């Protein structure tokens, strides 16, 4: 029996209680006692922000993680995590399982980080901003004091926003008192308990800075090699099943949370298509500059761009989700 510890960055909320726990439950029950995985919240098996280290070192045999936390190691992680003008949740699933994404993902993680990794949850489209200034166009975005981090901090700066960096725990007060104009966090469901909607008047969407994303499971290489083919397959399949579960559950929860925002006191603002194109243009320039000097970045980017090219014809023969009544 494999008595494993699972590390996560999450200290609570649906990513811990629903997504990570869901994967654990699948593995524990489907393996018929072959696995006994115990889930640990963020910061209890090593640092919450360096879960990959915890898996490499063997403190945890497995993790439920967001690859974006390794952005400081390599910008390629942004493409796999989901970035601005990137793939939507549905596109991510198609690219991963049919477009060669899963294979690239596993190969990349193994080569660069010496862990075996595969998708374990899917992330919904985020809210673009909780803001005290309405943002529709690039003009509105210029000079906006925006709290963000990672790849989007770089691209938003290039677009003219004044990006401010501060600890996650300081955002609420900073937004309330006007130290910053705006902040981004996550999808409607994730943002609800942060209370940002109580201290910022405008809710701006769609989340072009993060149109979708993927959470992964990572397995320690030595622990993985000790497994039988059947056990390895079981983990991969449980990951796939959890991706589907999380897509269903998160989509529904986001729907409810967004309805609640609409019914509440905030003013909802939709981004102008010209702004969305501007983000796309700047993102492409950012991608191209990294692809020139980073072979893995170039490889993943090429695969994602080929997929995006292919899916262009989708709207021509598929009805848009949610639009069937109108």
């Amino acid at each position: 029996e494999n008595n494993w510890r699972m590390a996560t960055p999450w200290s609570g909320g649906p990513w811990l209680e629903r997504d990570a726990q869901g994967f654990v439950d699948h593995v524990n029950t489907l393996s018929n006692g072959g696995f006994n995985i115990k889930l640990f919240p963020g910061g209890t098996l090593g640092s919450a922000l360096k879960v990959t280290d915890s898996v490499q070192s063997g403190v945890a045999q497995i993790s439920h993680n967001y690859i974006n936390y390794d952005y400081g190691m390599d910008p390629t992680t942004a493409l796999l995590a989901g970035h601005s003008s990137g793939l939507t949740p549905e596109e991510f699933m198609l690219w991963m399982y049919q477009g060669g994404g899963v294979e690239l993902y596993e190969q990349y993680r193994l080569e660069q980080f010496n862990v075996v990794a595969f998708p374990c949850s899917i992330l919904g489209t985020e809210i673009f901003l909780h803001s005290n200034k309405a943002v529709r166009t690039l003009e509105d975005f210029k000079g906006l004091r925006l709290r963000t981090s990672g790849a989007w901090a770089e691209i938003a700066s290039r677009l003219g926003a004044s990006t401010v960096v501060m600890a996650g725990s300081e955002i609420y007060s900073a937004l309330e008192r006007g130290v910053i104009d705006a902040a981004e966090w996550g999808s409607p469901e994730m943002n609800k308990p942060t209370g940002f909607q109580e201290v910022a008047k405008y809710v701006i969407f769609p989340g072009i800075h993060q149109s979708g994303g993927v959470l992964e499971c990572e397995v320690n290489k030595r622990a993985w090699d000790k497994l039988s083919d059947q056990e390895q397959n079981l983990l991969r399949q449980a990951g796939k099943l959890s991706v589907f579960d999380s897509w269903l559950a998160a989509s529904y929860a986001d729907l409810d949370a967004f309805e609640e925002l609409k019914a509440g006191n905030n003013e909802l603002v939709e981004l102008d298509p010209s702004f969305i194109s501007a983000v796309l243009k700047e993102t492409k320039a950012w991608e191209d500059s990294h692809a020139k000097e980073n072979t893995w970045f170039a490889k993943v980017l090429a695969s994602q761009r080929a997929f995006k090219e292919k899916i262009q014809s989708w709207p021509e023969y598929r009805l848009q989700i949610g639009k069937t009544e109108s």
Partner: protein
Amino acid sequence: MRLIHFLDGVTRLFGALAALLILPLTFALVYEVFSRYVLNQPTLWAYEISYMVMGALFMLGMANALRLKQHVSVDIVTLHLSIAAVAYLRTVFYLALIPLMFWLTWELAHYTYEAFVRHERSGRSAWNPVMWPVYTSWFIGFLLLALQLISELLKNLLIITTGKEH
């Protein structure tokens, strides 16, 4: 003992260095506020500098705080014990702590080296600086702490052998 003097001297020196770090820490954050409101341009570096300098002054200051007996302990029981008995207790504790601190120092050295080789960056801001200089300060901090523990151990051994405080 000359070793005690030497170790205490090194610790004192780094403690002074750590104390000076409070000035750049203050400057970085005040400049950020100034830059954001007067120049209307938040800096890319102030946030990164703030945690890096805070961490460095904390790590480099630990050993000197030990030398100055600043680390708090509960003396309710030990007040009723003889000086020698307390010295024996401390000796046992420090003998257990010294290997632990050297172990952590070694791990930090390894961690720093890896970050250097892999060009690990912070990933927190658009500045995205390399991390190995920060990790180096942590490594030095724990090395100093381990060495200062040796000095404290020797001081306790002196109490046991001579019956007097160093």
